[in-house]
């Protein structure tokens, strides 16, 4: 038996909920066919989540998943974004796989990249600071200090995988235009996703007792994101998310974290994402999306 999991036509960190709803019980007793044939567009968060789903299925011992690719034009972009080279390792891929080179010079500042250890984080941050700085400065008109904070935030978001997930994860950085929400301003988006234990399990041993019956995925995310608490008792821990928060507060950025069945976001004035969502369909691991708006265009 095969269960078909439809991928939304526009896959981003919010419509990921629809993808999750199609998964069914976990681990799935039957083979999953992740069907992206009607998918027209995906954000880096969507790409990272797709790979996370494939990785989680492989690591859970579920039957090897399948992936139906979108139409060739869209699949070509998936190849450019570095998705397909990894998807082929995780899924049995159906459809023509375009042999297009991964592109790191345009709107894709960092193609889908696996994060397994600290060396991978160093490599990602080094590449971004060397190659993408000019794009961030010129296309988004970000000042040097904003670009530096971007690199710091990227580093800390990736380190969360190494420190807390217990398995590998994925990161991608894209630049695109927010036509509706920011009237055509460009934004840089960092998407980090892992198939690990999630916020709730990571913090359970040290925090669950404090909250009793109120302990949940949403509470765990808030404990880490809003209160800066880590599972480590070391006073120096928990600085990563705190530092990202300070940076985003200064530059009107946004962070949204989904883990398990909840999503918690710190939402700037320009966006209307609900700050706390519970009871969502379960999805493996944790997904962090960070959005930094470029400078407002001159009138």
């Amino acid at each position, binding site marked *: 038996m095969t269960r078909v999991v439809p991928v939304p036509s526009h896959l981003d960190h919010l419509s990921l909920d629809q993808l999750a709803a199609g998964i069914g019980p976990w681990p799935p007793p039957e083979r999953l066919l992740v069907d992206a044939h009607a998918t027209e567009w995906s954000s880096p968060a969507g790409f990272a989540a797709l790979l996370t789903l494939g990785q989680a299925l492989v690591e859970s011992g579920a039957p090897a998943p399948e992936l139906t690719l979108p139409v060739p034009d869209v699949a070509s972009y998936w190849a450019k974004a570095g998705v397909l080279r990894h998807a082929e390792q995780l899924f049995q891929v159906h459809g023509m796989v375009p042999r297009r080179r991964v592109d790191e010079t345009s709107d894709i500042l960092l193609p889908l990249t696996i994060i397994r250890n*600290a060396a991978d984080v160093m490599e990602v*941050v080094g590449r971004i600071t060397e190659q993408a700085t000019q794009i961030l400065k010129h296309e988004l008109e970000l000042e040097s200090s904003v670009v530096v904070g971007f690199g710091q935030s990227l*580093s800390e978001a990736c380190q969360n995988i190494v420190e807390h997930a217990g398995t590998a994860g994925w990161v991608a950085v894209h630049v695109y235009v927010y036509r509706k929400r920011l009237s055509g301003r460009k934004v840089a988006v960092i998407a980090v996703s892992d198939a690990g234990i999630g916020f709730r399990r990571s913090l359970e041993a040290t925090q669950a007792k404090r909250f009793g019956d109120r302990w949940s995925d949403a509470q765990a995310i808030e404990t880490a994101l809003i209160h800066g608490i880590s599972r480590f008792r070391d006073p120096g821990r928990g600085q990563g998310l705190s530092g990202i928060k300070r940076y985003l507060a200064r530059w009107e950025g946004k962070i949204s974290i989904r883990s398990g069945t909840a999503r918690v976001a710190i939402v700037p004035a320009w966006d209307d994402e609900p700050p706390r969502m519970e009871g969502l369909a379960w999805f493996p691991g944790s997904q962090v999306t960070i959005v930094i708006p470029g400078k407002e265009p001159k009138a």
Partner: protein
Amino acid sequence: MSGIIRLDIVLREAVATPYRDLVTRPTGAAVRHRVITVLRAMQDDNAELDFSEVGLMDFSCADEVVAKLLVETVGLRIPRLMLRGVRDHHAEAIENALVRYDLIIVAVLAESPGPRLLGSAPEDWRAAFQALTHFGRAAAPPVADALAWPVPRTVDALEGLARHRCLVAHPDATFELGAVA
């Protein structure tokens, strides 16, 4: 005497990387361990950690390289430990890391010649430190005069800074910032 420890060189020795960025906790811990080895060999000398050629530093690395270094070198006979070549984003990350431990350190920023305190220094300490920069080396009374404070209040502040190795308290009851002033 003051020994300068170039962190970009320590980074290259500690981690095989073509980049100049101080990022990730394991990297920070590896750099810190090497710095501590160097500090152990230079007992009774002042030490300066040089950030001039360091690229980006993340928040976790600031904790590992600077805050935990201060915690782990309390017993070493290093009269003064300071930072130089620090850029604004380094300073911000270091400041936030030090506040969590209630620690302070003197830093000379790349863009400004004067030394400043990073971390959780009480206002009196910051004011006394600033006043002492005009003297270089002085007893408490002239610093107290400059601040229009009573001498005991000034002594408290200067001695607090000396306890945190931000300046040197000499046996003749003078306090000195040294080469950073």
